[in-house]
């Protein structure tokens, strides 16, 4: 996993400000609101202040009301003609106090809020939180529950990657067709979730030590039917777009993320693997029962948007392979650890960090317990937020259109970025 990460070099780089632009310190101090005087540019936004160079620059604010910013998200872009000179993401529009709410209620009460983090992937969010609490309390999970967790997580991964590809192509300008195909398949997966958990998106399904309720009768057959149709959908999707010359010209060579920068910035998930770094938590941590399944990890060579797109398509195929194996091998048995309690759940004092390979990257929960019914500290490591920190490096020097496509390729969800 190392990829050349040298602690001393990292600390050295941080102290000289190598990883951050020179005038970032100055820009952070002069945080006055941009003056919107009708006559024009009396004062300039902090993003533009720190730009040095010749010529007229155009400062544009993309968002927060914008079709392509993946939620309420603003990007202050300074353009030279159509080239991006400086780019500052501004977020916080969807901040909902999740971490503080986690400290207020009980451990169980935080579970529905984790659904709403990355609202496309509620089941993996639930699992990450359950992992952290199970580490904290030392709870074992029965085998059938582990299988159910793997099935749910891989289904989530498939529908998330399908959505992402749809959104990326929507932003590249394909008028809605790839999105509609992706959502057609997603509907089938959401129907599965509804018959299993009662809700399509906000599932609130995993509990500490297992699952809330067992699979309903006929669910495995329904799931098998859905999974059997997925390869054909993936073939159609590839036919539609993977060799489309316009798409290749739009995404190849655009937004190249070097492996060194990716590792230093903490980028995880398909973005990291597209840059060629072999790091998948399902293989590295072997959490759950992932070591029982045979699947491959695709790696990209160039680190551009096309690689990120194709890696996700390949990961969908690998998820289908995992699903086939899991559905074939799921045993009978209990689904909840008998020691787990719904109410008055008081894990002993201590701390735990539970993480897993969410579809967007490494999703982690860091919990500090003081022995009471509520966590003392409840901290989320949001993959979208950390992946977003490299946005400026990817976009500088490219056109504005490329910036939109790069943003689409990083796969962010504002619910996770802002929490």
């Amino acid at each position: 996993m190392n990829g050349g990460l040298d602690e001393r070099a990292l600390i050295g780089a941080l102290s000289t400000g190598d990883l951050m632009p020179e005038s970032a310190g100055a820009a952070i101090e002069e945080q006055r609101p941009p003056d919107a005087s009708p006559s024009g540019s009396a004062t300039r936004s902090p993003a533009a202040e720190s730009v040095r160079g010749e010529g007229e620059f155009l400062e544009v604010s993309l968002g927060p009301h914008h079709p392509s910013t993946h939620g309420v998200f603003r990007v202050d872009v300074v353009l030279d003609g159509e080239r991006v000179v400086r780019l500052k993401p501004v977020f916080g529009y969807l901040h909902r106090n999740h971490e503080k709410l986690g400290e207020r209620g009980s451990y169980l009460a935080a579970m529905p809020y984790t659904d709403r983090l990355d609202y496309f992937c509620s089941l993996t969010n639930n699992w990450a939180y359950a992992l952290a609490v199970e580490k904290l309390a030392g709870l074992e999970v029965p085998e059938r529950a582990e299988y159910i967790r793997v099935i749910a997580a891989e289904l989530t991964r498939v529908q998330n990657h399908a959505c992402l590809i749809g959104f990326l192509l929507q932003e590249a300008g394909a008028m809605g067709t790839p999105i509609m195909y992706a959502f057609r398949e997603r509907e089938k997966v959401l129907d599965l979730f509804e018959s299993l958990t009662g809700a399509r998106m906000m599932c609130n399904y995993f509990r500490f030590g297992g699952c809330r309720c067992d699979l309903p009768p006929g669910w495995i057959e329904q799931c098998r039917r859905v999974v059997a149709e997925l390869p054909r959908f993936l073939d159609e999707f590839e036919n539609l777009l993977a060799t489309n010359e316009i798409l290749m010209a739009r995404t190849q060579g655009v937004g190249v993320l070097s492996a060194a920068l990716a590792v230093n910035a903490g980028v995880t998930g398909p973005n990291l693997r597209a840059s060629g770094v072999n790091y998948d938590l399902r293989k590295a941590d072997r959490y759950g029962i992932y070591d029982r399944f045979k699947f491959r990890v695709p790696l990209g060579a160039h680190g551009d948007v096309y690689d990120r797109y194709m890696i996700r398509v390949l990961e969908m195929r690998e998820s289908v392979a995992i699903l086939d194996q899991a559905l074939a091998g799921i045993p009978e048995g209990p689904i909840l650890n008998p020691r787990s309690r719904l109410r008055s759940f008081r894990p002993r004092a201590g701390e735990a960090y539970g993480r897993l390979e969410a579809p967007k990257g490494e999703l982690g929960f860091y919990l500090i317990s003081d022995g009471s019914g509520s966590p003392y500290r409840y901290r989320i490591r949001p993959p979208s937020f950390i992946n977003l920190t490299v946005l400026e490096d990817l976009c500088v020097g490219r056109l504005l259109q490329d910036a939109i496509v790069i943003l689409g390729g990083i796969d962010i969800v504002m619910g996770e970025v802002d929490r």
Partner: protein
Amino acid sequence: MSRGVRLVGLGIVKGLIETARNFIGSYRDPRRLVTVEYPEVRLPPVERARTFPMLVYDGADPEAGLRCVACKICEKECPPQCIYIEADRDARGRVLKRPRVFDVDCSVCMGCQICAEVCPFDAIKMNTEYELAVADRFGGLLLRKSQLVRSTEYHRTVHPQEAVEIDAQVAQARARAEAKARAGGGG
């Protein structure tokens, strides 16, 4: 990185064939026209679907048959704290085992069904009604006890399997309680 002669433009043609296939397929294959034309066509309800809570009562009388005993466990466990319960008191001020006030603010409720999960008496269950739009933003979705009560017949229509199981359990528990009362009274 091209291997051999590759005609530039072929990828576009493949894409066009794919969309043409979907266009023609939308007239012939129902899987390629997936729109459900609500409200004329509604999807069949799913056993476990859930939207907002409801209070279940046995028998015909919502007051007498209400299973809720105002233990306030659901109020305590509710994550966004959208339930407000006041227990009923008799003439001398002693707490009775039924709620006088049971409010659920559905504009706050997340539909997480933790209240239904923790209720020891199977009194609060999840409903599946979703056509609840009201014009009053402030308090229009605050459902009072009278709006929340549903009979077990209704429960059986929305959640057939769960209702049958729970009714059986409740009937068993009641039979045991009566048997104990008779044994205690008789002996």
